[in-house]
């Protein structure tokens, strides 16, 4: 299940929903991303996140489908926030449950890495009264390519 939303999310509740996916589940891996200073500018106080409604959900569904072909994925959950966020706010959640821990870790990390370079979201950093669109990082492209 995929949600793109302005509201915050509750990782505990998301975990409990993933865990409830049947007796074959032995492993639940989760990742949560929080707003931090990207290092492009100093004194970042917040972010603004924009997305391409419709396409974003399709791209993420494609990543979940790819992960499900490569690994045992019993259930996957992706939440991404958009709009105005403050430092330390939760931005993104990826949770995967699987029979095996290796599959849960790999699928969760793959979805997260691929989301970073292929899902249409754009981040603007806010520093006091200036704004600045964040540039894509080569390290993110490298991490994403490593799964190919």
């Amino acid at each position: 299940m995929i949600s793109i939303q302005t509201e915050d999310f509750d990782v505990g509740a998301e975990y409990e929903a993933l865990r409830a996916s049947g007796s074959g589940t032995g492993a639940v891996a989760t990742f949560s991303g929080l707003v931090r200073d990207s290092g492009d500018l100093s004194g970042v106080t917040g972010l603004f996140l924009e997305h391409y409604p419709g396409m974003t959900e399709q791209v993420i569904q494609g990543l979940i489908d790819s992960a499900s072909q490569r690994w045992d994925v019993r259930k996957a959950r992706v939440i991404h926030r958009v709009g105005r966020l403050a430092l330390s706010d939760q931005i993104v959640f990826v949770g995967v449950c699987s029979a095996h821990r290796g599959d849960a870790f790999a699928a969760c990390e793959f979805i997260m890495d691929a989301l970073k370079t292929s899902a249409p979201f754009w981040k603007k950093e806010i520093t006091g009264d200036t704004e600045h669109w964040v540039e894509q990082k080569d390290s993110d492209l490298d991490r994403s390519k490593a799964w190919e």
Partner: protein
Amino acid sequence: MTDQNLTVRFFARLREELDTESLELPATPGQTVEGLLSQLAARGGPWAQLQGDQPVMVAVNQAMAKPSTPVTPGDEVAFFPPVTGG
């Protein structure tokens, strides 16, 4: 808007710098993404950056596309900078 048109959308930095969220343009027979980019860049000013040094990503009907991808009447074409979510 009719099915004879293209809908062209812009996101993030491009949306701001072009001061344009979307356009309706007549579709041209045999047109590709690359042709559409040239046509828009020819408007000059900030539009020239569509064929500039900074990478411009494109999606046709919400799927990633290439310069050679054809665009046909009714298509939704989107231009945007490299993505930075997560």
